[in-house]
């Protein structure tokens, strides 16, 4: 037994320090990679394939787009964004205003819903949980139309109120930007709802108790503790909503707000002014990146993971019966509002063509539209196609999204921020741009496509969905990961688990709510995807959205609505199943504990 001299003086400086770089024992290569997170190479091994994909299909085409925008007229196009009088600037401003307002509105609605459903237990809670994603599942065109049928000047609600109050004009019609915001709020609040509810479930409840104990009232606790603790989730949702709104096309189109970035891109393409369209697309990308960087900074200032010792239970108990009733009333209202667009679509699907003009509700009904679909042997194919392709894409998104989220949050390597930006860029760019990039990449075999020509094959579609919807899984996984104490993974490693095993059995398991939320979003969006699909689908891979669109353009609204109904039902089934999957048992119990 040696006793090391206790004096840490210079005299006893160990000889080892004279050789600061001892000959590193040659480690086997396999060792290095097996080294997991410990290995310096590990992060690169993990993210390299993805970085390649992203670079090939998102970053590099983005640069190409940018190059195109400055190719002909130099920087002149960008000048129009700075000078006050052009459409460009007002389009940018309008887009920004709409996006910011959408973020705020969706945040309020989504977080409120999450709070209601995760913190209270009341009759019908499970049902609402199942229909909560339905608005996001509305097919874009039909969805927007159903909102018009509901809330516009000629909509059911304003006309109904008009009849009710006997006023001369329809009551409370939505139009213009207000209309766009209504649609955005309806269709995008699930981003907030899903991520906030995943985060609420993963939060350390004792932190909340501490705030109450220090005298904070409920609202104050929300403002100063819960919301800040939900920051990663809120940031994730804000990013998604902001970028979606920025790239939103149908809603501004339908409500006639044409001074938006996406409308201008479309118009300029129609004009044949490709450089200008590219300029808009580039500005869109830049704005998104700036927003992303801002959010990253904001989030990175603080830590959100529990520092508590041990595991605290969800223990707060609410006995206030008033709260229960309020929750019930609020939820009934929410159900009505949530289901209204679907009901409208159902109404359309079951109404006879031309039988619904100035009436509040249609005058004549028929099942003809459904008969048409079910009697056509090929009619089911789009549905199956969509299911299959989104499923494949979702699986890919989950595998990659989770790993990249892990890499960006937990590993230290060069280019972490770039990777984050690259992933999100795919979400910020209009779908058309992504699709066109993919076509150019895969219509001939090149390095990025590994020499494969994918255009005209089945695989281009799932690939496009994958690239487009990866950010959804990535973001929400990343948000839940921010809450998880890394020492749990360390404990698993310490008990002998390899990185993969520790990741699978502990980290991933704890991330699951967020991953599932992202996967659901990806799947739902995959089923509804249109803008990219329409450019790359083949007759065998026509998705449901293309089918709906074709029916819409040939003004078979009824049939289109019937398809829309089927799509909604499909999503509904998926929601119910996944609700069961996501240990519905647990969430119910948690909520139940709150109301004990």
């Amino acid at each position: 037994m040696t006793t090391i001299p206790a004096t840490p003086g210079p005299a006893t400086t160990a000889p080892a320090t004279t050789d600061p770089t001892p000959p590193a024992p040659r480690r086997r290569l396999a060792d290095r990679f097996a080294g997991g997170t410990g290995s310096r190479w590990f992060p690169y091994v993990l993210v390299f394939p993805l970085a390649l994909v992203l670079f090939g299909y998102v970053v590099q085409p983005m640069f190409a787009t940018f190059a195109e925008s400055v190719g002909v007229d130099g920087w002149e196009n960008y000048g129009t964004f700075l000078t006050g009088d052009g459409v460009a600037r007002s389009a940018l401003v309008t887009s920004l205003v709409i996006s910011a307002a959408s973020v705020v509105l969706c945040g309020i609605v989504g977080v409120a819903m999450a709070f209601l459903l995760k913190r209270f237990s009341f009759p019908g809670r499970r049902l609402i949980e199942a229909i909560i994603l339905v608005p996001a599942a509305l097919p874009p065109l039909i969805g927007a139309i159903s909102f018009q049928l509901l809330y516009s000047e000629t909509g059911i609600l304003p006309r109904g109120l008009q009849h009710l109050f006997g006023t001369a004009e329809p009551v409370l019609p939505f139009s213009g930007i207000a209309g766009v915001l209504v649609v955005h709020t309806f269709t995008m609040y699930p981003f907030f709802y899903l991520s906030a509810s995943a985060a609420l479930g993963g939060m350390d409840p004792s932190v909340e108790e501490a705030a109450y104990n220090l005298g904070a009232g409920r609202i104050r606790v929300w403002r100063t503790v819960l919301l800040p603790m939900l920051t990663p989730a809120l940031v994730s949702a804000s990013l998604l909503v902001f970028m979606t709104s920025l790239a939103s096309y149908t809603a501004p189109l339908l409500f006639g707000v044409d001074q938006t970035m996406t409308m201008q891109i479309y118009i300029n393409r129609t004009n044949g002014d490709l450089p200008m369209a590219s300029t808009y697309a580039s500005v869109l990308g830049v704005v998104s990146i700036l927003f992303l960087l801002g959010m990253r900074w904001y989030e990175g200032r603080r830590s959100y993971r529990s520092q508590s010792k041990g595991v605290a239970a969800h223990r707060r108990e609410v006995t206030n019966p008033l709260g229960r009733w309020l929750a019930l009333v609020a939820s009934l209202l929410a159900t009505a509002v949530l289901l209204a667009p679907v009901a409208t679509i159902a109404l359309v699907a079951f109404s006879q063509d031309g039988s619904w003009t100035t009436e509040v509700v249609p005058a004549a009904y028929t099942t003809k539209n459904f008969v048409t679909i079910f009697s056509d042997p090929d009619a089911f194919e789009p549905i199956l196609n969509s299911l299959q392709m989104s499923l494949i894409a979702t699986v890919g998104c989950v595998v990659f999204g989770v790993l990249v989220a892990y890499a960006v949050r937990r590993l230290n390597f060069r280019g972490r921020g770039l990777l984050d930006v690259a992933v999100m860029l795919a979400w910020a760019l209009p779908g058309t741009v992504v699709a066109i990039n993919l076509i150019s990449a895969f219509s001939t075999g090149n390095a990025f496509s590994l020499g494969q020509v994918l255009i005209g094959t089945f695989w281009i579609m799932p690939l496009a969905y994958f690239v487009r919807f990866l950010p959804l899984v990535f973001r929400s996984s990343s948000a839940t990961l921010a809450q998880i104490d890394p020492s749990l993974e360390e404990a698993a490693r310490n008990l002998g688990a390899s990185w993969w095993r520790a990741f699978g059995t502990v980290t991933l398991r704890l991330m699951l709510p967020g991953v599932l939320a992202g996967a659901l979003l990806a799947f739902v969006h995959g089923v509804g995807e249109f803008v990219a699909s329409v450019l790359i689908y083949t007759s065998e891979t026509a998705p449901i959205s293309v089918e709906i669109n074709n029916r819409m353009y040939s003004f078979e609204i009824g049939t289109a609505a019937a398809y829309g109904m089927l799509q909604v039902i499909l999503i509904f089934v998926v929601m119910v199943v996944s609700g069961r999957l996501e240990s519905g048992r647990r969430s119910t119990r948690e909520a139940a504990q709150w109301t004990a």
Partner: protein
Amino acid sequence: GGGDDAGGSASAEKLTIYTARDKKVATYVVDQFTAKYPEYKGKVEILNLGAQEILERVRAEKANPQADVWWGGTQQGLAAAATEDLLAPIQPAFAAKMDPKYKDPEGRWFGEILLPEVIMYNNKALTPEQAPKDWDDLIKPEWKDKIIIRDVAASGTMRSIYASMIQRLSPDGSNPEPGYEWLRKLDANTGSYTANPTDLYLKMSRQQGVVSAWNLQDILLQANQANMPFGYVMPASGAPVLIDGLAAVKGGNTTGAQKFLEFLFDDKLRADLAKDYFQIPAVDIAEKPEWLAQLQLKPMDVDWDVVGKHETEWINHWNSQIKNKG
């Protein structure tokens, strides 16, 4: 898909068609086609896309074209594609009897149908007598907020109508001001712009507005097949007539494409399409259906070259300076 006919000859049988035609029309035509040429049975693939999407797609696929036939596109779109060297020149039999102004001189695209742009009105809300009679009636104060317009910038149809209105007042296109003034008044009367045709039909039928400008074929289709309460007026000063055309895509199965295009101009088929789908063919046909025979088409004299040169500028100006300003 048509992915492996890149070489052109290897699988000459396969035929991929990008069409902006209604799915029913496309299916009907292709069924007739394969009935006549059984060797194509199961070899024809149709993709339904918007005209703009076809252009985008053909452009993006330039390196490895997937399509053989481009069926349904505006004159402008086809011309642009021709300039970008995306289309294959062909010399089909019907080219000879076609009016030169309906086709590309080099045979890279051909007009298929004519789309007269007329005044549409809701015939439940207005009697034929009450409906406006000419373009200039539209800017009268009595129609304030009663007009609905399919949003212009994104619609080929509407762009052409609006550009014609300007060119009408300035034949050489040098002074668009009177046209702008006219459109400003129209804008003042316009209650709302709609996002797409469906939206237009819905709003018209629900009487959010009662008058619009739209193409004749769709008005007739909606009225006759979808029970929509629509009627039309042939403007006294004439209707701008658009050409909707087709082409063979360069690098595709040109032989098959030519065969298909030839078939499209089959006299019997044209007559059927005219009867059932209210199409006005770009070539003369023997058997005209009743509506076509009765149609007193009065084409407006539009110089499409002038329009083509200025359209972007004019529409951009309208979009940024006139729209929604009244």
